[in-house]
């Protein structure tokens, strides 16, 4: 199978959906000729023209609000938010407007829009261009949240997001744009709410989102050399969450580490860990552990930044402790 980059995969998904459905259009800062700073959208304006690939002023609340209005009136806008950190700028339009229209109208109005943005530290971009803010939007009923972990995932999830009748926020890991993966030429979609078991194992479950999937796959390979069999699961979408697959794995292995690049406190990892505690408690041999980014603003200096995010070595260390029983009576 051919291999393409995550960036190309996103581009293909959008192009295919724009060819299929003329209500789909793109809106955002420097999405046309520039193709975004990461060049993810290069070539689209040449094919679809400036009516459907629309460069906006630097007005995030404005163009996200306009996407909401266009979606409510029959279009399927894809809004490009240049950095995930800018979600703070659009919170009212996303969380008070887009997320709630369907419910507030008793099901009459729908907001079929995609907000595609990014996440991920270690790009030396410091505190305002490095955050992983998926927990903020996952908290809001009415929004769906997808977190692709490879080029293959990015294409299939993007196509599903565009066809979904709800506001969907997709977080792409900006450090993975050039990572290649096998992606079929034929069309495929990846349904929301269906987790992917990347590696089967019997001793410990590593639940990982987006960038952390690679981290956990590396960790699992290292653990295998020590005779520890780790299962690696990518939930793919955190809203909706495929609880069944996660719980089944927890019941099987009895030990779980949840890894996500958002801040550890009040985050995705805590939510997933709680659900496992509530619903698989008697199957567990150890507390469910969370591994997120440190609870500090992302520092600029490489010497500092690199220690704020989970690493394969860190996951291995936690896994060893869980296996040896060290974490059981931690209190």
């Amino acid at each position: 199978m051919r291999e393409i980059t995550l960036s190309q995969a996103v581009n293909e998904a959008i192009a295919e959906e724009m060819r299929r459905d003329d209500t789909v259009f793109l809106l955002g800062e420097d999405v046309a000729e520039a193709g975004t700073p990461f060049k993810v959208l290069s070539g689209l304006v040449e094919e679809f023209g400036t009516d459907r690939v629309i460069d906006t002023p630097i007005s995030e609340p404005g163009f996200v609000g306009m996407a909401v209005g266009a979606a409510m009136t029959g279009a399927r806008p894809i809004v490009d938010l240049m950095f995930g950190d800018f979600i703070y700028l659009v919170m009212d339009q996303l969380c008070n407007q887009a997320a709630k229209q369907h419910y507030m109208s008793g099901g009459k109005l729908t907001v079929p829009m995609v907000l595609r943005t990014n996440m991920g530290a270690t790009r030396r971009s410091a505190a305002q261009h490095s955050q992983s803010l998926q927990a903020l939007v996952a908290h809001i009923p009415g929004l769906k949240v997808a977190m692709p972990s490879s080029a293959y995932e990015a294409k299939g999830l993007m196509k599903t997001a565009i066809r979904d009748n709800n506001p969907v926020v997709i977080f792409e890991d900006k450090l993975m744009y050039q990572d290649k993966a096998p992606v079929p030429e034929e069309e495929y979609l990846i349904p929301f709410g269906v987790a992917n078991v990347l590696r089967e194992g019997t001793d410990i479950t590593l639940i990982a989102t987006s960038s952390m999937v690679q981290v956990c796959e590396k960790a699992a390979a290292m653990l295998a050399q020590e005779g520890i069999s780790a299962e690696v699961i990518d939930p793919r979408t955190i809203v909706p969450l495929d609880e069944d697959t996660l719980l089944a794995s927890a019941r099987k292995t009895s030990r779980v580490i949840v890894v996500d690049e958002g801040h550890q406190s009040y985050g995705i990892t805590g939510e997933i860990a709680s659900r496992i505690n509530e619903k698989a408690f008697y199957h567990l041999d150890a507390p469910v552990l969370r591994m997120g980014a440190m609870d500090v603003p992302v520092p600029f200096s490489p010497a500092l930044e690199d220690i704020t995010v989970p690493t394969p070595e860190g996951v291995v260390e936690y896994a060893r402790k869980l296996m040896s029983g060290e974490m059981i009576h931690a209190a």
Partner: protein
Amino acid sequence: MAKAKTKSNAEDYLRMYRQMVRIRTFEDNANQLYLSAKMPGLTHMYSGEEAVAVGICEALTDSDRITSTHRGHGHCVAKGAEFKEMFCELLGKEEGYCRGKGGSMHIADQSHGNLGANAIVGGSMGIATGSALRAKLQGADDVTVCFFGDGATAQGLMYEVMNMAALWKLPVIYACENNGYSEYTKTEEIAAGSITARAEAFGIEAHKVDGQDVLAVNELAQKLVARARKGEGPFFIELMTYRYHGHHVGDINRAYYRSKDEERDWKDNRDPIVRFRSYLVQEGLASEEEIEAMNAEIEQDATEAVAYAEAARYPDVSEVDMHVYAD
């Protein structure tokens, strides 16, 4: 009162009068529901501003769209909504426009092009502008009117979307209902300079009109809507009007921010319904008796709708987690 050119519009005029009275009657009944503790929560009365909603919405068709505000009952009625579903919504009943999930501040009636009230001041400006973008991309000639108050002119979103609307010549009309008060504060204390000049800074043609004169509002709206359909938009209108009640129904003691004399002056001398009624009689378009009969019929409709809504069912509890996500 702006002079009508001919009397051939008698039917339109009587409909405008009827719609203004319907709004006032709706609000009087809603206020009573609040005062008698039959309505959950609070509501914001549109009384006094009827000529604004009616003058503009009478220039629109059902496929034209509006976005409304927390003070939105007037826009909803003017865009074609029915009393029964509106009162049901205000009381949180199953047959309400939003199945009781939105209430007064989120009432929406998309079958008549009302994309909904919005409880975030200025929160719908993006939605209205996006609706206009949709019309343009679609090649449709639908116009969107964005209603908002003077208070919302202090929100940054307005300037972001007006900039884009002007750049892309979108068919949107920004209708600023300047009722003199931003919640509990005089507009002159929150708005520097001229409101219309702000739109003009983006190259948007802006007008200021007497919002208590339904014919003046309608005449201007007709012209601007027709031009917006031809791609000459966007436009901005500042409508000078007055809010008879407080910020919301519970805002009773308000002498600290505005005087009773001022309120009395607007009600006695500039009431949009009284003014238009005199005009209709004076011009021989309706007799006093016909008008009284119309008023009584509307009052009767409202009484029946209120009774219906009071007796109507609440949504089943199983609806609580329905409509969070669309299929």
